[in-house]
């Protein structure tokens, strides 16, 4: 049985009005409008046509695979690098506080700004990266113009931008581990390697859960960085679900883009809900 709330019902009213008006109604309305051809002037009922069209969209398969790959690669890198950086930055090294803020700084910068900056840096002939590579005799690739490299370049920038947040969460996680565990392990003769794998990694699992889920959701719904850096190009090679949906909206296919958003919503729910359940269960077992 649930504990009775200490607040009277009217206390919930303002929040309920905001929730219903700004979240519940639009969510339900979007399910309806995804079944129509609509524009600001009228809505014609279309049945499942928009969904059929969306799934037969030739670029959608590519966009979905790109989205999954992007989310997987970036959350893996953010988790691994975030943990390593956090271990480094809690080791009591020189200028630790300053270095922590340096790692966190990219998180504070506007994503669009980061995107435009790296678009300049990654220019194939005049960008700082390739000019630098040329100086040491390496012929740099077209980071954003080579179709098989473009998405990967965007992913690297996303990791650079987002790893600071993962590090911060890990630093908080590491600080909750009582020093006694390390002491006990050391008395038992554990090596540094064993300390890391047997003590640190299992005990920061709550932080890992948070980092994985946040970066996975972030990766699945990523839009701004892709749009600022490549607009899904060249061609469709770095398109992700969100940019495919945005292009449908831009083209005036409002029903189709609404259907795409419903699909994105379901996809994120399908991936994240079981993952969250699984990660949290392990946490209880541990």
């Amino acid at each position: 049985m649930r504990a009775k709330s200490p607040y009277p019902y009217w206390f919930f009213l303002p929040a309920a009005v905001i929730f219903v008006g700004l979240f519940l109604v639009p969510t339900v309305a979007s399910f309806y409008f995804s079944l129509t051809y609509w524009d600001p002037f009228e809505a014609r009922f279309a049945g499942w046509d928009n969904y059929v069209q969306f799934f037969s969209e030739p670029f959608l398969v590519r966009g979905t695979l790109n989205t999954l790959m992007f989310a997987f690669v970036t959350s893996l890198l953010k988790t691994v690098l975030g943990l390593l950086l956090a271990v480094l930055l809690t080791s009591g090294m020189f200028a630790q506080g300053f270095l922590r803020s340096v790692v966190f700084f990219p998180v504070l910068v506007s994503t669009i700004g980061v995107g435009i900056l790296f678009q300049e840096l990654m220019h194939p002939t005049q960008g700082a990266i390739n000019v630098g590579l040329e100086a040491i005799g390496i012929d740099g690739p077209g980071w954003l113009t080579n179709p098989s490299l473009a998405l990967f370049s965007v992913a690297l920038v996303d990791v650079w931008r987002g790893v600071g947040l993962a590090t911060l969460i890990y630093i908080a996680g590491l600080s909750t581990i009582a020093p006694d565990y390390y002491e006990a392990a050391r008395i038992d003769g554990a090596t540094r390697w064993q300390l890391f794998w047997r003590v640190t990694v299992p005990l920061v699992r709550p932080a890992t859960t948070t980092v994985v889920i946040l970066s996975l959701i972030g990766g699945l719904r990523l839009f701004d960085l892709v749009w600022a850096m490549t607009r899904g190009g060249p061609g469709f090679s770095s398109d992700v679900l969100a940019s495919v949906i945005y292009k449908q909206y831009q083209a005036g296919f409002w029903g189709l883009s609404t259907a795409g958003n419903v699909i994105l919503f379901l996809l994120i729910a399908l991936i994240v809900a079981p993952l969250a359940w699984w990660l949290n269960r392990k946490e209880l077992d541990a």
Partner: protein
Amino acid sequence: MTTRLISTTAMLLALGASGAAAQELTLLVDNSADTVAIAEALTAAYTEQNPDVSFSIEVRPGGSEGDNIVKTRLATGEMTDVFLYNSGSLLQALRPDRTLVPINDIANFDQILDSFTQTVSDDQQNVYGVPAQTAMGGGMLYHVPTYEELGLEVPTNWDDFMANNAAIAEQTDKAPIIQTYQDTWTSQLLVLADYYNVQAEEPGFADAYTANEAKYASTPAAMEGFGRLQEAYESGYFNEDFGAANYDDGLRMVANGEGVHYPMLTFAIPAIQQNYPDKLDDVGFFAQPGDSSDENGLTVWMPAAYYIARGGDNIDIAKDFLNFVATTEGCDIITEAVGATGPYLIDGCTLPDSVPTSVADMMPYFQREGGTAPALEYLSPIKGPALEQLTVEVGSGIRDAQSAAELYDADVSKQARQLGLPNW
């Protein structure tokens, strides 16, 4: 008696007040430097003749972001009295018969050329817009000094064009063809500007295409544009940084002769005039050549127009303003504001004696009977949004012409269904 006196006085006062009060007309234009300059010049001239009418000009972004602003403001009744928007297929998406005021009854209506009115009308012959600029051509901007230096002639068929490219590649280190895929829309020109050649071979293509009876992929004449783009890529004639260069880079390259041919619309001329004024006469223009020199002509784009939104308070003044734009005086004001950019679509308008080289190169096509044809987007309401990505793929060697044309045919079906066209 007293009541009547009071009410009459009140009425007189009200009349007096409205007669003396200045009327303000609101105007929404896109934010490009030319359109703002034109709107400012036209409204200033109108206010000079009608001192009680003043204007307030709002600007909006261009491109699809601007499309959505215009659609939303029309749908919510928040549109300005007069606004600037594209003619052709984009206008049809605004549902002009429900949102705009027809202007067939303005005094100078017959001065607007039919070739323009048919791109801003609905199926009931209601016409909605007055052209806000000159007609434009789609083809090749080219670097004249390089042509003179190498002794090349302006090509009138595709083989001659490719032979010129070969000569340029051999004898200079300039890029024979400039492509700028950072701005993806620029990649469509070789396909879209080929439409004169398409309709020369398949006169009924536009209607059959709208009726879902003809496809790009299965019509050889229509496939040529995609094929030419593929051929140009495979010949290696593009500038080295074609994937990362943008529109402004393209204009710089053709003005300074870093590249020789830039497939583009002539609306680029004012930008060249502004950024490279001393190079303006180094840039010439010719239509995109087709298979045969016998059928060489220009694909024409129509300018944006001024429209009147329904439900405004100042419709009569707005009509009078549009009537003013549709005069030779209106044309001269535009020429003064942004220079001569092409032929006007108002009867009797003339260009000054000295015009930029590229404009002078374009005019003979218009003066020759059958020398021009409108681009497909003025003949058919369907244009697929993914064309610019597909042409980037063909132009970057990611996809071949045939496969791109097939995907484009699938893409346009979305537009046809959104518009609710029959037979789709």
